């Protein structure tokens, strides 16, 4: 890629670990310039985070740029001098939440950040006080006529907690501010010093509906750091599990979207069908959420021929019923009227915010880790990227449906041509002094894990970026100029994770 910025950073491919010294240390302003230029040239900020240096005291910032066009990752690090650094956000919107996180975790102030507010409200520590949860300088629209609507943390349905603050004029939403952190349970902190016997269980519960996705990202890192070769059969089975996870969630989302516009037939059918896909995962590994399936070195459960036959038969039946249920959505004008032009996010905004997953693809952005940063089984098979261009609820529904069809097709192919051999290799412990990055296309979008090991092979830092971290702001933007009564519909069309964000 042309661009001096990339020459200053180290190039990595997805799921590669290198000596931690290979990550170039730059003066902060040089790193800043490299990120800004890299983003200008089409790069995305996949991760940008702080960590305490080994000598203690100083905070080092690490950046991971993802260049979709090249399928390359670029990494660099820098230690800002003093207690602040010039913020990237004014010139690079993608950095906004990352910089808030850095400020909250380390007290390192991004100067000039236009929206410096808490992210997760961690407990106070190291001589720093923290605001109480939910206390923030919420954006307010002044005047006689606008009013404010506050929702959460405890919601009306069976959902995770979060706080939503709407600035409204009548039914119209001027602005939505989303304040999270209620699910913060200290997972990243607890990962430092690992791997321990809890590590894999933390991965499977980072976002419980994405157990396969996060466990896979983690295992890719551990395998890269330990030089473990994963058998071909395991790669295929991991792909099967990841697509089953996508299927269950996408089908559930389409049903929930139908419920939110009051179209009960599809809501009822997809509610049942989601269970059928979850049960297919349970057929594989005993757990509807894929717990125990992905393990360092391979998978925890093999797929025998009889089981494979049952799996395919069940998927065929489920897809047939899913098609009937989902076609009702496309054929019902009352549903289309509610889906179309609701919660629109433009392609420009999607690119500026660095949206990922179906939310990005619904804005016409061809961004899918399975295609752009393929690893494991996706290196050997092509899954076409499903996109739509209207950026509204309809587009987000349509992308899901296209992905459902392709995931079933993918699983069918994999199961019928499973490579022979073992499904798990003995995984070693991570080597000392390694740095690695892994990306996985979870059902919500790009999952990014970044880790470094110390001199004894223990994680000295472990960064998790759930796709929701990128996408929550997309939901806030989607609500601009919408009716407040469309919030549940817009929210469901993104279906983001609270716990994956709060960690």
């Amino acid at each position, binding site marked *: 890629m042309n661009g001096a910025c990339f020459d200053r950073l180290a190039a990595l491919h997805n799921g590669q670990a290198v000596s931690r010294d290979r990550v170039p240390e730059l003066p902060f302003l040089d790193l800043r310039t490299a990120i800004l230029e890299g983003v200008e040239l089409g790069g995305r900020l996949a991760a940008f985070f702080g960590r305490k240096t080994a000598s203690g005291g100083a905070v080092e910032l690490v950046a991971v740029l993802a260049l979709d066009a090249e399928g390359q990752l670029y990494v660099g690090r820098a230690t800002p001098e003093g207690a602040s650094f010039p913020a990237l956000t004014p010139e690079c919107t993608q950095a906004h939440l990352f910089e808030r996180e850095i400020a909250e975790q380390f007290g390192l102030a991004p100067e000039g950040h236009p929206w410096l507010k808490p992210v*997760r409200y961690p*407990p106070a520590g190291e001589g720093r006080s923290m605001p109480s949860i939910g206390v923030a300088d919420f954006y307010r629209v002044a005047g006689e006529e606008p009013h404010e609507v506050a929702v959460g943390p405890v919601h009306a349905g069976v959902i995770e907690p979060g706080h939503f603050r709407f600035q409204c004029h009548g039914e119209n939403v001027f602005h939505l501010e989303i304040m999270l952190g*209620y699910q913060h349970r200290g997972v990243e902190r607890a990962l430092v010093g690992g791997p321990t016997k809890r590590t894999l269980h933390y991965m499977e519960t980072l*976002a419980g509906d994405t157990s396969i996705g996060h466990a896979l990202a983690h295992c890719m890192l551990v395998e890269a750091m330990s030089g473990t070769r994963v058998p071909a059969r395991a790669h295929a089975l991991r792909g099967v599990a990841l697509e089953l996870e996508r299927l269950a969630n996408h089908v559930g989302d389409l049903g929930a979207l139908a419920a939110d516009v009051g179209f009960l037939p599809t809501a009822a059918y997809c509610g*049942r069908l989601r*269970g059928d896909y979850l049960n297919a995962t349970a*057929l*594989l590994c005993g757990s509807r959420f894929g717990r125990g399936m992905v393990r360092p070195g391979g998978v925890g459960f093999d797929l025998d021929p009889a089981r494979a036959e049952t799996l395919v038969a069940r998927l065929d039946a489920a897809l047939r019923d899913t098609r009937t249920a989902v076609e009702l959505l496309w054929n019902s004008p009352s549903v289309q009227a509610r889906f179309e032009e609701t919660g629109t996010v433009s392609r420009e905004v999607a690119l500026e915010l660095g949206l990922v997953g179906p939310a990005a693809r619904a804005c016409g952005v061809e961004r899918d880790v399975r295609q752009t940063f393929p690893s494991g089984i996706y290196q050997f098979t092509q899954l076409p990227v499903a996109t739509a261009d209207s950026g509204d609820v309809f587009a987000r529904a349509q992308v899901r449906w296209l992905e459902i069809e392709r995931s079933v097709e993918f699983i069918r192919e994999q199961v019928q041509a499973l490579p022979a051999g073992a499904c798990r290799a003995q995984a070693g412990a991570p080597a000392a002094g390694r740095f690695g990055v892994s990306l996985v296309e979870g059902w919500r979008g790009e999952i990014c894990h970044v880790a470094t090991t110390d001199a004894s092979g223990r994680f000295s830092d472990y960064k998790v970026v759930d796709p929701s971290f990128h996408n929550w702001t997309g939901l806030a933007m989607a609500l601009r100029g919408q009716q407040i009564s469309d919030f549940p519909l817009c929210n469901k069309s993104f279906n983001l994770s609270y716990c994956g964000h709060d960690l």
Partner: protein
Amino acid sequence: MLKVLLARLAQGHRTIPFPGEAPSLPDRFRGAPELDPTKCPDGCQACVDACPTGALAQDAAGPRLDLGRCLFCTDCTEACPAGALRHTTEYRLAVREREDLVIRRTLEKRASALEGKLRSLFGRSLKLRQVSAGGCNGCESDVNVLNTIVFDLGRFGIQFVASPRHADGLLITGPVTENMRLALRKTYDAVPPPKLVIAVGACAISGGPFLDHPEAHNGASSVVPVDLFIPGCPPHPLTILDGLLRLVGRIEEGAGDRGDVPAIP
């Protein structure tokens, strides 16, 4: 309109005949663990050392397993050199007393029904407010699924309501993060007495994988009194449904106590 009717015909009837008939569970489903201390080699600690949440312990009387902490993972069964531990497909796991979850061989005592006034108040109509307090959305998902046509929770008179003021009790998931403690307490206080609390999942019972994290509180009991414990990570929807039905007296007391494991199809 015709398409809607045709789709309805194609989709068929999907509500399971639970609790009338034994449900079918996958053969790899990890239900109640079963311990056989006679197989334990002398001085062996392999399972205790492997357990991620300290659910297993060894004392003079042999191994002891706390199902309230158990993630129903395979770490202990894989570590055991003698096959002294295994998962059965027994999904009926709910209890009324926390200590009933601590087992020596297998789960012996299941939840009994509410008594007296509470039974007459809630036996045929139970409205619950769900509070997710640090859960990973696994338990939440499998609670939500009870509202689908497969389980059709409403037919038992049990319903999730939008306001704690309309509720008879809370169903809590998650370890209770510090950031949710106040919200949970306020929601509990807003439920008119007499009220029930149901803790669903390892997190809500013991903290689960987040046990002893300073950011969380080791479960619902740290904030409110709990009347029903439903273990699992996450519990299967049938485990949750079975627990709820036992509580309201819709499943005969003692059913499953003798370890009659459901048939595998």
